């Protein structure tokens, strides 16, 4: 299948008072149609910036220094605003971490949801009467298993609980047909039992509609049962990717190994040392592989040249590490 979304060698920096933060350092990422992908990484690794680059919503102090983001063959970084908006309306949709911040508190759900449907370009919005919109809105809310959709439509966001708000956000993003759903930490602000429900819901909807989904999280467990492929990101690079099961049972990159070891286990084995050091200074990042100052296996070449994300043993398990890349 041709790549549906492809990010190639993306370099993005941010201008600040201390200098330029060279965050994205040649990001490589591929997504096929109907594929479910997760991106895990800790704060500051650049995962949200990558998504913003794809959607074209980077901050004003961002500088795109190289690379391509191609969606169905079109370079998202170079197309005109009008085309970008078309793609955003028809193909892409995003769910954010904080449902409270994503819903405008002065509008009722009916208006919020109605607007999204009305301007989705799915049908001539001149003909969209209140009745038609309400009907479609109720259908959308039913899809996300919200009890009593009529009451929800007539409510303001603050009258709903966190879990319900996030479901409304999901309904808004999937009310009209889309190809790709990007979910940035969608369950982080929710309780554990509600997280479970919402993730299941997302998985069902994605399966039912054959959507592609990019699920971003710093919580490894969130990603495990929801996606088929996982990418691990560190300091602006994708450093490992593989099928979900394989990544968790056989992590190859030293960072991934350290990360998995840091997660407290239900079996009660105590705490690991974590990963020594801290994330690199983006203004003066270490040359070569950015993980090298913290890596106990670091070799000469790690300090000189950045390894590419390459397949290991032909198993669809890719690592960006000189321990595995044949040289």
């Amino acid at each position, binding site marked *: 299948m041709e790549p549906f979304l492809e990010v190639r060698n993306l370099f993005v920096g941010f201008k600040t008072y201390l200098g330029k933060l060279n965050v994205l350092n040649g990001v490589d990422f591929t997504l096929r149609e109907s594929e479910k992908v997760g991106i895990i990484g*800790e704060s500051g690794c650049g995962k949200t910036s990558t998504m913003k680059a794809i959607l074209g919503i980077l901050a004003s102090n961002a500088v795109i220094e190289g690379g391509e983001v191609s969606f169905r063959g079109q370079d998202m970084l170079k197309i005109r605003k009008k085309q970008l908006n078309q793609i955003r309306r028809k193909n892409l949709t995003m769910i954010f971490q904080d449902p409270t911040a994503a819903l405008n508190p002065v509008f009722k759900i009916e208006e919020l949801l109605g607007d999204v449907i009305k301007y989705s370009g799915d049908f001539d919005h001149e003909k969209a009467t209140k009745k038609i919109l309400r009907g479609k809105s109720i259908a959308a809310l039913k899809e996300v298993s919200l009890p009593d959709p009529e009451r929800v439509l007539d409510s303001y966001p603050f009258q709903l609980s*966190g879990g319900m708000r996030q479901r409304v956000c999901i309904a808004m993003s999937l009310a009209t047909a889309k190809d790709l759903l990007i979910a940035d930490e969608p369950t982080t602000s929710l309780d554990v039992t509600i997280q479970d429900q919402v993730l299941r819901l997302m998985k069902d909807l994605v399966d039912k509609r054959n959507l592609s989904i990019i699920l971003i999280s710093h919580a490894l467990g969130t990603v495990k049962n929801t996606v088929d492929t996982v990418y691990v990101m560190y300091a602006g690079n994708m450093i490992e990717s593989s099928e979900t099961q394989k990544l968790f049972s056989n992590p190859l990159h030293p960072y991934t190994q350290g990360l998995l070891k840091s997660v407290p286990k*239900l079996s009660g084995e105590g705490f690991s040392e974590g990963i020594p050091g801290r994330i690199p200074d983006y203004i003066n990042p270490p040359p070569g592989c950015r993980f090298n100052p913290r890596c106990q296996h670091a070799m000469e070449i790690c300090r000189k040249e950045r390894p590419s994300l390459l397949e290991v043993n032909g198993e669809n398990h890719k690592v960006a590490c000189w321990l595995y890349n044949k040289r």
Partner: protein
Amino acid sequence: MEKNEDLLVVENLTKHFKTSFGVVRAIDDINFTVKSGETFGLVGESGSGKSTTGYVVMGIYTPTSGRILFKGNDLSMHAKKRPKGLKKNLAIVFQDPASSLNPTKTVKDVIGQPLRIQGLAKTREERDKRVSELLDAVELPSQDFKERRPKDLGGGERQAVAIARAIATNPSFIVLDEPTSALDVSIQAKIMKVLMKLQQELNLSYLFITHDLSLMRNVSSRVAIMYLAQIVEFAPTPIFFRNPVHPYTQMLLSSIPVLTDDEEKLKPKEVTSRGEVPSAINPPPGCRFHTRCPFATGICKTKQPSFVTVEPDHQVACHLAAK
């Protein structure tokens, strides 16, 4: 204090808040004890009252009724009314590293504040030296960090500073309110290691509050689980996780995301979580969990369950357990 003596005793503690929507019943008649040198875990989701419990123990809120005894002294009042000498024995580390440190102060000021208030380390040199010692204890480079401001520090570093501030007055008891929830997993591991080390070295007792059960499994010696202002089950940690009896405990345990198959096997049989947490202003009658409980029977809807001892040290408030 000998190890294993009762350090903190909480009796029939209740805290209600009057708001414009009605009376919010944040804590309703809870009882527990923390012994010296141990970590007592309080687990629950949002709205359970676990954080409020920590705040009432620290004196941030005045209890509506009930008693708090610390080493036999009555502490059932607001922090402002507590004797200064007693105050230095208790400390708290908050959940959000961003707002627990004053952004306009330097690290030196922040850690020096409790020293100054309690009159420990009177001269500038003494204070300086003590701040360096404390930074070393939490594994932060002391020379570098003293003059920095919170906004230049990462989340983990800020929490480490908050911990250094908490141990400054040599307390015997620290309330840790979700100290690592806002941190990445690799930094969480580091901070937890520091906390464990400090507990050993300084013989500290912790009231550890979190919603993360995997974390709790590794840190506490006894666990109590709260639902809607009440404790519904408590037991020593290994027993709590091996044999959860209350349906809510089972529900919570079965929904935690784990990474390995070995851990999956340790989870109880799945109790699918249903519904939302009811309002704390109007909690359901009878057993408060009955609206979400798949095993609810007639009596659950009308009568509050009392505690039943299921095993030595393991108590559950559930009508089904009484059978």
